[in-house]
């Protein structure tokens, strides 16, 4: 794949947002991979596939508004050696096409990359029917399906490149909208099945964040540092398989507080995963703060309004962590 992570490029990608960046990444892949097939359930436009359709029309298939059939179709293409990326909005993949994913990707282990567009609260006024509130939780239940969530637009390129070589059943969860904040301004190594440190001032608090929350947690960590609280922030770009080994090593430093952060229900996703890992690594005695959306259907509104309302912005995260520490 031919792309460059530079200051100029990341600013451009941030402006256009995750879905248009994803479309660009798929175009780059299509330029070099003759076996690439991009499939969508009538959301080609919403996947940023315009440039792909212009340049490589034969590499895109619209299955129509038929998410369940899309999974079967994707599996069929994969069996003939195609490198498949199939897209829809997060709930229509995780819920509506769930059983087809279970049979084709998990049970039959057929390698297909499915992409959950605009997960979390990105779809604003389209409301709960379209919000991705539970997708990490659902995909965690499928044996053998990898779960990725890019922290910014440049990481989308890295994950597309990674998955194109990996050739395993994978779910890629896109969060955020246009002007998606920048975490990485230059190239870096991304390792499958590991998480990445994006901030380090000390070991009092270990923050495990994913997707859109990585940026907000890093900003919160800077504020915490100013308040004399020293943290590490980890970008969990690969949620499943989770790097239990590094997690155990981190815990052996006895942080006062472990924090999980996700634009997702607070139950069932990354937070629950971290809690399970604390127990299985014999660190259940450590304190955990799970940051995420409350387990209920939410209000609709502009993305920034919702992040603030549900305390997922940097300042709210800073306050939540500070308050939790003072209570302990």
């Amino acid at each position: 794949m031919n792309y460059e992570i530079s200051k100029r490029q990341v600013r451009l990608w941030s402006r256009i947002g995750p879905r248009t960046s994803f479309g660009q990444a798929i175009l780059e892949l299509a330029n070099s991979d003759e076996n690439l097939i991009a499939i969508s359930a009538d959301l080609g436009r919403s996947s940023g596939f315009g440039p792909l359709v212009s340049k490589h029309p034969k590499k895109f298939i619209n299955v129509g508004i038929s998410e369940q059939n899309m999974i079967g179709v994707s599996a069929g293409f994969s069996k003939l050696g195609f490198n498949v990326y199939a897209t829809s909005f997060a709930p229509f993949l995780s819920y509506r096409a769930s059983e087809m994913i279970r049979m084709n990707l998990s049970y039959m282990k057929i390698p297909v990359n499915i992409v959950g567009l605009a997960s979390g609260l990105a779809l604003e006024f389209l409301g709960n029917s379209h919000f991705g509130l539970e997708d990490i939780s659902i995909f965690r239940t499928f044996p053998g399906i990898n779960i990725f969530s890019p922290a910014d637009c440049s990481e989308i390129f890295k994950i597309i490149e990674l998955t194109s070589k990996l050739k395993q059943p994978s779910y890629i969860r896109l969060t955020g909208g246009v002007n998606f904040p920048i975490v990485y301004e230059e190239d870096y190594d991304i390792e499958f099945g590991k998480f990445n440190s994006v901030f380090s001032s000390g070991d009092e608090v270990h923050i495990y964040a994913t997707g859109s929350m990585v940026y907000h947690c890093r900003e919160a960590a800077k504020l915490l540092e100013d308040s004399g609280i020293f943290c590490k922030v980890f970008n969990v770009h690969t949620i499943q398989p989770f790097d239990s080994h590094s997690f155990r090593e981190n815990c052996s430093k006895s942080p006062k507080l472990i924090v999980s952060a996700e634009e997702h229900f607070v139950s069932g996703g990354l937070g629950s995963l971290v809690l399970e890992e604390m127990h299985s690594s014999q660190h259940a005695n450590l304190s955990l703060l799970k940051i995420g959306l409350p387990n209920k259907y939410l209000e609709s509104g502009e993305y920034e309004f919702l992040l603030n309302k549900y305390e997922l912005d940097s300042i709210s995260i800073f306050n939540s962590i500070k308050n939790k520490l003072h209570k302990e």
Partner: protein
Amino acid sequence: MKTTDLIKKARKDIIKYGFESGGFSHYGGALSMLDFLCVLYNEFLKQPKDLSATSERDYFILSKGHCALGLYSVLFNKGYFDEDYFKSYLKNGTDLIAHPIKNLSKGIESSNGSLGQGISMATGIAHAILKKGIKNKVYCVLGDGECNEGIVYEALNYASHYKLKNLCVFLDLNGLQNDPEEYDFRRSYKGSSKEILDIGLKYTNIFKSIGWKINYINGHDEDELRKSLSEFHQKDNDKPFVIIGKTIKGNGVLLMENDNEWHHNKISKSFYEQIKVL
């Protein structure tokens, strides 16, 4: 208000309240189903303004939920809620969002947005009404893009099998869905008259083969809509009924007609000034 006037007013209000919200709406699809909705609500639908008052009444389900702005405009003009409530459309924290949220006291029967699920519930309501032995009717608007979803055929089969003669579907055949023609596996009405015939024939044949009664009409002809709805009410009707309405996405707003940019879009101030609403 006469139905002809309701159609004009509701259409103006779609544009007015849509624009004033400052947000994105699915204008095209709201406008293509509007004539049917107005004839239905003005002349046929028998329900109290507060739907929670009783379950023994008529039902309307907007299965193509993203066209909620069209439904809101009709509900407003028929007195289900007031102007202040309509003005909360697309405001932060509002209940009036891009897809209907079930709110019986405001005339909204169900929460929709996930395509194909409305028609499924409609068949359940219709069957339950028959089992109760009451005479009420169930109406449902289905999109043609929506008919890509498999559950639609599950519902159509069920309705036919259980002879749900009290169920009337309006299939809004505007020939377009989200992705534009060049991404699409099926052409839009911008094509030849043969293509128009093909799509209409396809759905006529599907519904007929599954065991429904068909009326294939001009979805913007008030008289034809009225005639079809009257036929649905005839005593000898013994099958679920579909009005396949050939419609224009964005109908009645010249700058929007058949332009798929108006599937989901925002009206700018300058566009609002240019717009002519018929």
